[in-house]
């Protein structure tokens, strides 16, 4: 069966499109809905969104590939995104990334074998006063230490 939204998500899709003065303006929020529903935006998901939005898959792919939060490949349940930009780097972000990498046994850009974690480095997340920090899915974790990170990772099942 081809990929499609659940009835609840489809309703959200319609509400989203109706909020905007022009349908095409709703593309980013609709892509976010699709990513939430399908886990990532593979070719099938992109084609489905393109059809819903009356656009070509090529154009939709062009948009997807531009934004760092949109994933074209599957990722782990918990997406660990450690800020690596200067203010965090000045406060230990490089060591933090090595620590997480060692703890999880994966390199930056990889996913653990059980699909639990993906580790990424990201650019400034507007949390420089509480550096070093990481974002896991939607949540910010700030003022991190190795001990704190160990605890956080253990809590993410």
């Amino acid at each position, binding site marked *: 069966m081809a990929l499609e939204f659940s009835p609840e998500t489809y309703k959200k899709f319609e509400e989203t499109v109706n909020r905007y003065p022009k349908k*095409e303006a709703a593309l*980013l929020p609709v*892509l976010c809905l699709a990513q939430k529903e399908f886990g990532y935006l593979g070719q099938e998901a992109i084609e489905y969104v393109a059809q819903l939005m009356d656009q070509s898959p090529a154009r939709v792919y062009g948009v997807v590939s531009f934004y760092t939060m949109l994933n074209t490949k599957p990722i782990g349940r918990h997406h660990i995104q450690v800020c690596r930009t200067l*203010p965090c780097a000045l406060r230990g972000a490089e060591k933090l990334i090595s620590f997480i990498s060692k703890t999880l046994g994966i390199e930056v850009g990889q996913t653990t074998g059980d699909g639990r974690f993906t580790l990424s480095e990201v650019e400034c997340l507007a949390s*420089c*006063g509480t550096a070093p920090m990481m974002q896991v899915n939607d949540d910010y974790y700030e003022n991190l230490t190795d001990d704190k990170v160990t605890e956080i990772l253990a809590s993410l099942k």
Partner: protein
Amino acid sequence: MEKLLLRNIDVPDSHTLAVYRSRGGYRSWEEVVKNIRPEQLIEEIKASGLRGRGGAGFPTGMKWSFVPKDSPKPKYMVCNADESEPGTFKDRLLIEKDPHAVIEGTLVAAYAIQSHTAFIYIRGELAFGAGVLEQAVDEARQSGYIGKNTMGSGYDLDVIVHRGAGAYICGEETALLSSLEGARGWPKVKPPFPATHGLFGCPTVVNNVETLAVLPWIIEHGAAAYAAVGTEKSKGTKLFSVSGHISKPGVYELEMGYPFMKFLEEDCGGVPNGRKLKGVIPGGGSMPVLRPDELEKVNLDYESVQAAGSFLGSGGVIVMDDATCMVRAAWNLARFFAHESCGQCSPCREGCHWMEKIFHRIEQGEGRKGDLELILNVSGNIMGNTICPFGDAAAMPAAAFIKKYREEFEEHIAQKRCTIRME
């Protein structure tokens, strides 16, 4: 000093409508929509001397006045909440702790340009802040501050919270509009300016969160009261986000013109661990770094920081102590710009990557003779040769690091290794 921007954030539940209203919230909006003509409002904000807080410092009232009054097209107001400048986290604080001030400011600005649809474009990563804003917009809508015939004034105004999806460039106003149109966040050539050809080709104003959040205070207290604060050309107060090697990092509200060193040493507690100051980036990662000797007479206002050879920018103050490797710092920022270049203009798309590669090889002990001239050359070829200011934002800090810490770069190249290990 009276706080204009951080006036509510320490109050418990400051993000709720009930608390905001108990502190005088939405009274300015009611006054504006019922009793003030748009032209009057624009004059009032011009008289206040308020300048845009996103980084460029353009006079806000003047920006509004460029919107044509007789255009048959719809007009759009956009609040730029895409805060992504390295070292900057002030807007996030306002969004999370005082969302109604941001919304009220957006309503006031929308009315000034006679827009009936306003967007708050918030960067996608700020999921918590977006949730706070959405809830605040719902509350304001239910109480009649937003919607059709708002507060019985006959004025219709809707507010849409729009989340980005991860791209620094979308903080640039024309890139933001491209993104809001459902496209890649590619900046557009100016002119035409958004005031006449913005969102969907319609007249549009884009203002930063901090710019908008102070509008209710200005309406309530009057332009003269605002203009009485600050310096001759930099009026009012400004938020500064302080990060890096500093005892008390955080967001501070200061009167424009406050002495820079006094701020760092007294308000922020100075550089910790007995270390000395080595350099400060005063206005976010796109601005040239300043050495301690250059900071001595600098005050925190647009003119004074510019006279010292940098810019006030977003007010993102990044502090570096004497254990910082400036080659590594320069490489870190060059990598940021290489990652975030939108890829539209070749000087920036190619140049940012080359600068990153060369800085990296110097830091790795593989620097070559002539590398510093090469970076300065690449940087010079980006400056002024791109559609949007991103090119300059990448080029300026790269050149400044080399010019101001040249010996350290030369040492790296001569000794074929990093001579300073960053903790």
